[in-house]
């Protein structure tokens, strides 16, 4: 154990570093997510680039002090452009023994551990599985350990506020936040403003939190922790106004924006499910945009209600996770048959079944692609970073409306809860995704000579069918899940027509390739020995891994897909350009199988299904191994 020595005269001086990865860990009831989020926001407002990884258990309040009750929040802050929350943390904040036991493995060698020493009593040590106190033996040699009696210091600090002992103790996360804010020279005002807004209604609690936060900060200053103070300069960023945003908020705002851009009211039919519920919560707040949210009785009713709203001319959305997508499958097939626009949002999590509800995975790609009965193709869009969920949502809505088709939008638990700075776009720069509805008959009835509306008359360019809304005089028509005659929409069981309709629905989706950007290749575009192909949230780790390997002289190119069906028109050519193709995926190789089947390329999988995202280092190792592999 390294003793922390004061260096006289250096108090207030901070060593300049270019980045730091901090992991806050404690009991689920310790408020670690909140602590991490506040540290993130203060850093974002300060101007650092950052990326976060919340990592919490499925239990709301797991038994106190147990390992499975540990909740953690990792954040990387930097003075330069970063794309992921960092590989190994250099600082670990441990609020109890279970947090130390559960998280120590992740810490980089020589890293700093800040420990709430008050919680290391025999009872908590036993719960965490320690037979002796790790603070009192040499098991932490090789790390820099800072012992702080956070619980008692917090209680003492907030005494004057008059809060009860239990409430006083609960402020200890703000003490920790104050201390870490001091260590990393974070400005205090962002957090203080937030405390005042959040607890303004209860002055006593507000004061206690302010006192705890300031006490933590003052502790750093006075308790001879000098030598442990760092500053990280703001990252150079494009000029503009920024906010720190997580994937689910960005996705929900993308849907709000899509409604505005399409000039259609948004309708969300949804059933609560982790990690997608925050989309329902967020949209439910924005009724002033004319957004309707219906919390349905089940997943099937969620998409059913959305489909009904789509028939009525609303921009229809349902948001769920993998188990919900499975239940919605039949209605998706109906939407494909009805050729009505709709967006199905899948915030993927570890599966199968309940799996790992709060942990991330990306193993729904095959289900999105093929998980329906019959020949039922639909477009798939995937987001690759928290803020990019905004654009991905607009793109999914654009395709749905233009081609009258359900679209699956894939995100995952990591993107959903992870945050990053986002240059707020000017709404006037966003695309117009408005669509047109039929207002006049498009056919004359052969028998009666009367004008009428044929719902399956198609735009020759897009193959999208004519869409007439209930309420439009003279265009009454019926649609259904039974196979229908192209054009009239009347029931048809003829072999030729069914074959034609199967082909037409597939051609419509395939044709979208003409309407999406070609996949861009970066890195050693001309002479790479290896192409790293990715999709979804692996982007951040892949970018860093490829950059690092290229800095070591390796010839590596990178391509990342935002459209999984159809693939970009140039993908086959891009894949065949390079001798080797490596596909890192948070599954056992879904995209690799798809590109192998589609393009006959020997794409190799690097798989991770541990409920946590890839680190850049893991992908680096895989890149090296693949480069070494004899052809």
């Amino acid at each position, binding site marked *: 154990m390294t003793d922390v020595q004061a260096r006289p005269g250096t108090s207030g001086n901070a060593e300049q570093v270019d980045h730091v990865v901090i992991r806050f860990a404690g009991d689920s009831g310790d408020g670690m997510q909140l602590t991490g989020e506040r540290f993130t926001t203060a850093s974002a407002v300060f101007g650092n680039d950052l990326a976060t990884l919340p990592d919490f258990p499925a239990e709301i309040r797991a038994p106190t002090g147990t390992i499975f009750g540990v909740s953690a929040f990792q954040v990387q802050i930097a003075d330069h452009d970063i794309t992921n929350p960092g590989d190994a943390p250099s600082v670990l904040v441990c609020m109890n023994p279970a947090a130390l036991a559960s998280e120590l493995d992740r810490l980089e060698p020589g890293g700093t551990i800040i420990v709430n020493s008050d919680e290391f009593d025999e009872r908590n040590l036993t719960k965490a599985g320690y037979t002796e106190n790790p603070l009192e033996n040499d098991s932490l040699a090789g790390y820099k350990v800072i012992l702080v009696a956070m619980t008692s210091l917090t209680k003492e600090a907030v005494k004057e506020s008059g809060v009860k002992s239990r409430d006083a103790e609960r402020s200890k996360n703000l003490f920790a936040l104050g201390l870490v804010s001091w260590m990393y020279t974070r400005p205090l005002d962002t957090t203080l403003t937030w405390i005042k807004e959040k607890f303004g209604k209860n002055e006593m609690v507000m004061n206690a939190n302010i006192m705890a936060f300031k006490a933590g900060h003052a502790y750093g200053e006075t308790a001879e922790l000098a030598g442990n103070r760092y500053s990280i300069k703001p990252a150079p960023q494009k000029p503009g106004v920024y906010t720190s945003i997580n994937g689910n908020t960005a996705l929900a705002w993308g849907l709000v924006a899509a409604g505005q851009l399409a000039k259609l009211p948004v309708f969300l039919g949804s059933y609560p499910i982790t990690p997608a519920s925050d989309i329902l919560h967020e949209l439910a707040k924005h009724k002033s945009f004319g957004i309707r949210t219906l919390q*349905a009785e089940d997943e099937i009713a969620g998409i059913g209600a959305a489909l009904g709203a789509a028939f009525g001319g609303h921009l229809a959305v349902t948001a769920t996770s993998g188990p919900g997508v499975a239940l919605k499958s039949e209605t998706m097939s109906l939407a494909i048959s009805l050729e009505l626009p709709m967006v199905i949002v899948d915030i993927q999590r570890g599966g199968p079944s309940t799996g790992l509800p709060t942990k991330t995975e990306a193993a729904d790609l095959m289900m999105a692609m093929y998980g329906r009965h019959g020949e039922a193709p639909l477009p798939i869009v995937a987001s690759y970073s928290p803020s990019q969920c905004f654009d991905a949502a607009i793109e999914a809505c654009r395709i749905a409306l233009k081609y009258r088709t359900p679209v699956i939008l894939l995100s995952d638990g990591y993107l959903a809860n992870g945050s990053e700075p986002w240059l707020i776009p000017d709404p006037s720069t966003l695309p117009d995704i408005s669509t047109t509805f039929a207002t006049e008959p498009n056919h004359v009835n052969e028998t009666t000579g009367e004008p009428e509306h044929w719902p399956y008359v198609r735009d020759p360019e897009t193959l999208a069918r004519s869409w007439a809304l209930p309420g439009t005089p003279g265009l009454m028509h019926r649609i259904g899940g039974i196979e229908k005659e192209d054009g009239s929409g009347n029931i048809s069981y003829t072999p030729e027509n069914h074959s034609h309709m199967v082909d037409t629905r597939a051609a419509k989706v395939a044709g979208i390739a003409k309407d999406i950007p070609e996949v861009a290749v970066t890195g050693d575009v001309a002479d790479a020995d290896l192409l790293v192909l990715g999709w979804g949230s692996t982007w951040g780790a892949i970018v860093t891994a490829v950059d690092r390997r290229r800095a070591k002289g390796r010839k590596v190119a990178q391509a990342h897909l935002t459209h999984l069906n159809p693939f970009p028109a140039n993908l086959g050519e891009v894949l065949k350009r390079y001798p080797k193709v490596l596909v890192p995926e948070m599954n056992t190789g879904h995209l690799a199988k798809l590109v192998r089947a589609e393009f006959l390329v020997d794409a190799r999988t690097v798989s991770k299904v541990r409920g946590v995202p890839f680190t850049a280092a893991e992908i680096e190792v895989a890149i090296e191994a693949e480069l070494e592999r004899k052809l």
Partner: protein
Amino acid sequence: MTDVQVPLTSRKDWQSDQEVRWCPGCGDYSILTAVQLLMPELGVNRENTVFVSGIGCAARFPYYMNTYGMHSIHGRAPAIATGLAVARPDLDVWVVGGDGDLLSIGGNHLIHALRRNVNLTILMFNNQIYGLTKGQFSPTSALGKVTKSSPMGSLDAPFNPLAVALGAGATFVARTHDMDRPHMQEMMRRAHDHKGAAFVEIFQNCNVFNDGQFETLTTRANRDDMLIPLENGKPVRFGKEKEKGVIISSDGAAHIVNVADVGEDAILIHDEARPEPGLAFMLAHLASSVNEPTPVGVFRAVQTIEYADANAKQLAAAQERSGAGDLSALLHSLPTWEV
């Protein structure tokens, strides 16, 4: 849409050009006729009318109406119709389904549509059998019913559809049958005019797989003695001479009695608007099979908050409070910083 001029229409205007494909003699024909004849009298436009159905024989209904329509998937019509009615409160949304569609695979959606009180007119054709899959017992088939899938008799206790609806908090519940067009139309009219979810059970004969199932009740010869007409504010009496009636005895149960035995004053006065559903529930349970006198008519009709209306009010209140949504303001609503 009350201030909109509704052009006069006839039955023909409400018929689509599609050939009706039910088995000859099916009770569905008489229900279709009743609806097509009723529509011109309801003061509604064809373009503002939507029929939504699930799967089953009854679910073909929308194809035959010259309105907007959706033939969806098994059981889901109440959910789909809920979304449509909430998104478009200006529309008249009807749900048509059979006992299998609405009480078995779609039972969950039905009860939730009813308890939400979404403005839907739900017509459930009850033939107590699965028709389209060729004759298995349904959730309303009697215990012991011998069918292809229950050769030794069904072991399933049946649902009482009206009791299910009442238990779900339905605000309008009625029963009629396919042999009495005026009564069907009166129930449909009442259901249509009800603001909220209206549930109408229609006894419907499946002449192929369950022929004559309701004959004990619905033939002209049997009606007077076997159907108990419920009329609001009037004593619950039936029989050729109205000689029989229903009383609530001191044990709290409903019983059928001879009026002469108990006196006219003892006969239950029907009150469809009672806030608590207990009386309607008791009437729903008066008959336990088609061999017992069975009430028809409006069991319950109470006005309360309608879902789409309440939803629209929340939207209006939100806009009143913070103005129409401003996208730029939303995107700047979290802490921001400028570079």
